């Protein structure tokens, strides 16, 4: 059956050759979707008489089947969820009360899930686009889709003698453990090109690894014990709302909360004090504070004596090259405040600093994290309950990665050369000249890598759990690079900008239609994700796709793929569990999770409580030889920030209404956040003759966007603030049109590639 789907007003008209309005078209598609989707669309409310009072409200606990799910998004809070299903339809969701962290509530995004599952815009069946970017989508069968993909893979093997021409980019669209089956699918085909690294947090990971030998934060629930909390370049009021209750409780018990951020964020509004720091000067500020500790003799000498490798050299450096006044000048924070807060922080125990990910999205991000870590270490707060330099952890991620670990078919040829880890979740050692490995490219520079790749070039790209055209950098370059690809296959839920550039789109399941298990990189809970409703339309989860592709390609040419051909997704989930996980969580079986989320049994809520660090010296390293190996200063030192390349700093942090390009496209979310805005200070507004609601052009060397302006003093007068999000098919707004792919300093050591200096961007602004 041929059906058409347009991906924009222009394309709809081209496709249908008539003046069908978008509203009519969507209604038509909704009707088609309704037929294809029953009973799913039984959820949409109907007219008078069909409703009970009030329509579809809570019908009593016996009315529903309740399932446990876990939000698989890239979020600190990774909520345990309860799904209430009636007659095979998901009626509503709630947070899992079994988790003290989730405490029964989700967030504005989580609560919009039912609308996402049953959205008429959801991709329902495999489709191919006749002419990339034209919107001429034609429905095809799974058989045809897999056949096309399989044949192309075999063709690449013929052509190049290896599968290095097949590239795969994936990141955090779904962190359910079984979704590593995408990597597994690639491995099971042979040695391929992987876009490795992470745009998110690599500089900080490396920094914490240089300092302590691992990224390992305290249990966030122990913040209630903190007497002093500095939230530095993090915004939990948007990005970790469940953490706020611990901060509030600490405050209630008398703790002081300081927020350091370029923007007066919602978190800053809840603090006792807020510092509007100059972006990129956080390292300078931390070093200045460290210097002041020395001046006032407030450092924890005993702890540093025992545990501080290279500390005396660091102290000498501070005395020689850092002053509080210098730090004040760099950061814009008055010296008097720096001194007072430093003294306050050092005079109570425990005290803690929460280092955010926005903090390290700079060319000097890793160096800045090292400096802040050092300050915490000097106050003797590492390894203390309620203390610590908190960033993140992977402590609870010790699954089998059964879906991930697949062997290449016999006779596969791969990349020979030194490689690093294939991402932050790769605990392997990488490769060397003696073995074949995948070819690793920097995920953050996908456009440049594709443009430069040769022997062989990247000819085919598989994209899953990532929205390249929304989230990757230098959009125009990406479009250029994609022209080099023969075949682009995207597995996704919605017709997002990446799908718009695909040749084939494969419809995927939502978390409610999938079996998997989830943990967090912040808290210490684990949740099962049960399949609450049957997969809708013709959707398949990532491992089902892998399995189906394996069967297809082996039927064309036997021995082409080792991925198991007839998988049971539930079995695949069960295979992820091992004794390590069971004993860490104190459960006998994965089935225990059906009663609710479970928390890891920790020796202490504090990481590093035994002071046995994972560094070569076993101590906290103010001076790290490994750092030097990777081209950084061994000693914690000041590193210059990036120079401005335009008049105003451009900050593009996370919106609360979306998780990257998910959720904001839903009509329910548009009810709460209808459009993107550029926030500017009244002074800048006056300079440019702008008032609230004016349309502006924001532009720089990388690109241009147009949007409405909001005049607000939450931003500094030299800054333009825009929240990153995808507003759906008819809105081309994308902050990454303006963001270049300049790397952050660190990230290669532990994640295989450096990060991106997302917040070291600059732009001009004019009335449109």
């Amino acid at each position, binding site marked *: 059956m041929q059906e058409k789907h347009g991906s924009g007003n222009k394309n709809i008209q081209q496709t249908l050759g008539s003046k069908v309005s978008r509203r009519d078209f969507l209604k038509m598609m909704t009707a088609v979707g309704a037929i294809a989707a029953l009973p799913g669309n039984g959820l949409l409310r109907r007219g008078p008489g069909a*409703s009970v009072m009030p329509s579809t409200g809570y019908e009593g606990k016996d009315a529903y089947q309740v399932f446990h799910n876990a939000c698989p998004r890239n979020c600190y809070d990774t909520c345990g969820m309860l799904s209430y299903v009636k007659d095979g339809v998901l009626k509503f969701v709630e947070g899992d009360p079994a988790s003290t962290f989730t405490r029964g509530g989700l967030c504005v995004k*989580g609560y919009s*899930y039912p*609308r996402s599952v049953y959205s008429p815009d959801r991709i329902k069946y495999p489709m191919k686009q006749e002419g990339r970017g034209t919107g001429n989508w034609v429905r095809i069968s799974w058989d045809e889709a897999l056949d096309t993909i399989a044949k192309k893979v075999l063709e690449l093997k013929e052509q190049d003698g290896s599968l290095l021409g097949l590239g795969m980019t994936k990141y955090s669209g779904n962190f359910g453990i079984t979704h590593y089956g995408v990597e597994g699918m690639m491995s099971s085909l042979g040695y391929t090109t992987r876009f490795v690294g992470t745009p998110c947090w690599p500089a900080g990971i490396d920094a914490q690894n240089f300092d302590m030998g691992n990224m390992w934060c305290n249990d966030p629930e122990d913040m209630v014990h903190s007497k002093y909390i500095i939230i530095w370049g993090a915004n939990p009021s948007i990005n970790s709302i*469940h953490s706020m209750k611990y901060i509030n409780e600490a405050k209630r018990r008398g703790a002081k909360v300081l927020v350091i951020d370029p923007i*007066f964020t919602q978190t800053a509004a809840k*603090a006792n004090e807020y510092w509007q720091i100059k972006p990129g000067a956080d390292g300078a500020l931390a070093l200045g504070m460290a210097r002041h500790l020395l001046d006032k003799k407030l450092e924890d000498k005993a702890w540093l004596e025992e545990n501080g490798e290279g500390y005396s050299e660091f102290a000498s450096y501070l005395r020689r090259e850092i002053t509080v006044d210098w730090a004040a000048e760099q950061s814009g924070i008055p010296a008097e405040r720096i001194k007072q807060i430093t003294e306050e922080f050092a005079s109570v125990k425990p005290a803690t600093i929460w280092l955010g990910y926005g903090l390290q999205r700079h060319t000097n991000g890793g160096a800045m994290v090292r400096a802040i870590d050092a300050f915490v270490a000097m106050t003797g707060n590492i390894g203390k309950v309620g203390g610590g330099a908190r960033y993140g952890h992977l402590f609870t991620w010790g699954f089998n990665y059964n879906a991930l670990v697949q062997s290449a078919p016999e006779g596969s040829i791969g990349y020979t050369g030194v490689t690093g880890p294939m991402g932050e979740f790769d605990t392997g050692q990488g490769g060397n000249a003696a073995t074949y490995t995948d070819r690793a490219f920097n995920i953050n520079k996908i456009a440049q890598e594709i443009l430069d790749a040769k022997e062989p070039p990247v000819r085919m790209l598989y994209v899953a759990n990532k929205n390249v055209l929304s989230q990757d950098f230098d959009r125009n370059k990406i479009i250029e690079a994609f022209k080099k690809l023969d075949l682009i296959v995207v597995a996704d839920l919605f017709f997002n900008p990446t799908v718009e550039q695909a040749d084939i789109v494969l419809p995927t399941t939502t978390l409610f239609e999938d079996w998997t298990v989830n943990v967090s990189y912040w808290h210490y809970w684990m949740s099962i994700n049960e399949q609450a409703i049957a997969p809708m339309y013709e959707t398949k989860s990532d491992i089902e796709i892998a399995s189906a592709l394996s069967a297809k390609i082996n039927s064309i040419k036997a021995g082409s793929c080792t991925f198991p051909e007839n998988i049971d997704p539930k079995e695949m989930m069960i295979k992820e569990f091992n004794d390590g996980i069971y004993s860490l969580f104190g459960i006998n079986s994965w089935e225990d999770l059906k009663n609710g989320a479970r928390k890891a049994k920790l020796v202490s809520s504090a990481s590093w409580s035994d002071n046995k660090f994972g560094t070569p010296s076993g101590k906290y390293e103010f001076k790290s030889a490994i750092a030097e190996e990777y081209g950084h200063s061994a000693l914690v030192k000041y590193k210059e920030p990036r120079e401005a390349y335009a008049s105003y700093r451009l900050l593009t942090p996370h919106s609360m209404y979306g998780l990257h390009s998910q959720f904001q496209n839903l009509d*329910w979310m548009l009810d709460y956040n209808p459009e993107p805005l550029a926030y500017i*200070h009244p002074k800048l507004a006056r300079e440019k003759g702008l008032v609230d609601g004016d349309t502006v052009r924001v532009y720089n060397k990388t690109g241009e966007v147009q949007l409405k302006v909001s005049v607000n003093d939450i931003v500094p007068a030299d800054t333009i603030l825009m929240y990153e999000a995808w507003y759906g098919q008819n809105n081309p707004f994308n902050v990454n049109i303006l963001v270049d792919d300049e790397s952050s300093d660190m990230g290669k050591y532990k994640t295989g590639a450096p990060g991106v200096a997302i917040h070291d961007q600059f732009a001009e602004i004019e009335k449109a």
Partner: protein
Amino acid sequence: MTRYAFSVNAELCIGCSSCGMACKNQYNLDPGMVWRKLYPLSEEIYPHKDRAFYSLACNHCSQPACLEGCPVGAYTQREDGIVVHNEDVCIGCRNCLRNCPFGAPRYNEEEGHVEKCSMCWQRIDEGLLPACVQACPTNALTLVDLDVDDVSSTVQYPPGFPYRPDLEPSTRFVLPVAPKIVRRDV
């Protein structure tokens, strides 16, 4: 006696809108229909835009204007103070929209009736919290019993909220506080 009310603590509120979306989720509201949302306080009240909010839905007044003016009796007031709207009885005349100074009732043009928050009375009757209250990550939005709980540190008519002692809205408020701010510029 029981007299349920929402307590809105704008100091604890982080503006996350979990409350609003939890309501949409519980009732599968049509797009465009919003029963609960955050109202940012104007700069005259809290000195920074978009940084302090009242989460408001229906205030379940003691003297509900919606109920008094409804020609078909679509509103009833329970013993515990909850003002319930019955969508089936409602004929969509929208007189209640003219009468509620708090904008609680919303007209659903497609369905031809008005809708509003009825305090999740079905959940309350089962001993559960209203969906919005359960959703709040910071206890900013809570359910109180005005006859039992200590609400002495709350106010009934904060700035930014209509002063209507003729209606006696039940909602209670705690006002937000601004932090010490260190700016590096103007």
